[in-house]
């Protein structure tokens, strides 16, 4: 329980002279759900993009399960067990929900391109298994009916769930969620937080989540990190955060 899953050491990144993240350090323990909150432009999504290696930090280091992950390529991040969702839902629009989930299993499908061209028995078997697994996850999230739909025809809430399913299907250890509750009403949000807890237990996940919806954050997070102008201004349990005057001034109002 106390093992470190993620460790940020003194991360700084600047865009055109403006520091989006300024010497940020914090860690996430295995099995925790950590919330990251802060006003818009505080650098939350930038932080996620650094974890995903879309951006490279100027200084500092990221450790994943105590291994240095600062020099990974974006597509190698998932091999460390880290997978994410996106603020504005980045589904593969012209692929069915099922295919989206099969892409999620990309790195697990161990056959080469030549055997897939002639569709060997092995390839067929692997594909079948992958499909089965995709349906399992879809069923857990209660969206198995949409397997053959194109995301573009689905309501936003379902799209968000599909994206979550696509992340889960890759067997992650660390799940990074960027505003999973955006566009949901309070009741739906509560459902989501319950579901996430359940998933966390089931798949033994560590979760980092950005969210503005305070009830959600308070409900689900073990710990909360508050960012403002790229700096960490507070860290602690939800209750501590709620009453922290700095946080109230900068964020909660």
């Amino acid at each position, binding site marked *: 329980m106390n093992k470190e899953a993620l460790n940020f050491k003194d991360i700084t990144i600047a865009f055109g002279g403006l520091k989006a993240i300024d010497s940020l350090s914090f860690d996430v323990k295995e099995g925790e759900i950590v919330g990251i909150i802060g006003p818009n432009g505080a650098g939350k999504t930038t932080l996620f993009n650094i974890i995903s290696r879309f951006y490279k930090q100027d200084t500092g280091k990221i450790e994943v399960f105590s291994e240095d992950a600062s020099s990974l390529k974006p*597509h190698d991040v998932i091999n460390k067990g880290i997978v994410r969702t996106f603020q504005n839902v980045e589904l593969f629009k012209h692929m069915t929900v099922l295919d989206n989930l099969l*892409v999620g299993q990309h790195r697990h499908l161990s056959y080469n391109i030549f055997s897939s061209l002639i569709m060997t028995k092995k390839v067929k078997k692997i594909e079948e298994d992958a499909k089965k697994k995709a349906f399992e996850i879809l069923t857990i999230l209660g969206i198995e009916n949409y397997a053959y739909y194109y995301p573009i025809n689905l*309501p936003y809430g379902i799209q968000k769930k599909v994206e979550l399913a696509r992340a889960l299907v890759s067997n992650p250890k660390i799940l990074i969620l960027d505003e999973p509750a955006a566009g949901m009403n309070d009741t739906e949000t509560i459902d989501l937080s319950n579901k996430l807890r359940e998933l966390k237990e089931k798949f033994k996940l560590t979760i980092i989540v950005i969210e503005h919806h305070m009830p959600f954050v308070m409900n689900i997070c073990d710990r909360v990190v508050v960012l403002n102008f790229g700096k960490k201004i507070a860290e602690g349990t939800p209750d501590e955060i709620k009453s922290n005057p700095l946080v109230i001034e900068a964020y909660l109002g």
Partner: protein
Amino acid sequence: MKKYMKQVILLAIFIILPLIFNFNRSFMTLLNMAGIYVVIAIGFNILLGYAGQISLGHAAFVGIGAYTTAILSTKFNLSFILIIPIVMLISGLLGFVLGLPALRLQGNYLAIATLGFGVAFSHIFMEWESVTGGFSGIKGISPPSIFGYQLKTRLSMYYFILIFIIISIIFAKNLIKTKTGRALMAIRDSEYAAMSLGIDVAKYKTIAFLISAVYAGVAGCLYAFLFRQVYPNTFDVGMSLNILAMIVIGGIASIEGSVVGALFITLIPEFLKNIKIQNASFILTGLLLILCVMYFPYGLIDIYRRFKMWLKKKRIAVKDEGVKV
């Protein structure tokens, strides 16, 4: 076996077609050309339709395939069994090279880079006389022979090309159903999401260029075997644009669409030629191109899809009850 009944029937039709109608030689030539374009179009659709990478220099790969074949056949007297793998290798290599700028460029910028590649190659075919024979090209390519039987007639070439088309279709279909194809589509739809799911974008973009280049190269090889001569101005920007038009008209991101588009563009001037107005086939082809994108924005293959939809309409209507919007 029942699963593939439709395909088998279709195949049988294509096998018997020239036998029943006993097409004359010139029409067979046209059919064979169309067949070669089918192979190119399938490969190009993998690149543009599935991987979302545009290329306006695709004729260069066809040219490379054709010239490689011509040189290997006339100067080294190799048989087609040896030539085809070499062509695949060389065109694949070139596809890899062209794929490199694609790692940094998108949209129009990629279009212009590939266009530049195409223009550069048509100049090379023309200028590098010692190898390509300059404007007079290379003649005297020997026809492919199987067990001593030379495929000299148009009909035998028809079946030869048909075999390649079948292989092309099967490979392409398998590709898009599996890991590699899905990775390509994922990159097309969202590079960031693809990356975060462990897809090496650079690798797969390169693969897309490589595969489509191999398709084009093999088609070029067939071209050289069909006409048994190659000339530089065949493989120009016009051909590249033609290939693009084929898949847009046939149907983007559809293997069947590639086939339909290639046949349509190659054969349509044949049906327009009886109109006795000057320039008529040129103008009407242009007009048809516009009408096609206007009324079949998803390609001609959409007619078939819509027909299928119409048949299944009831089922879909039932299915949609479940969708909340």
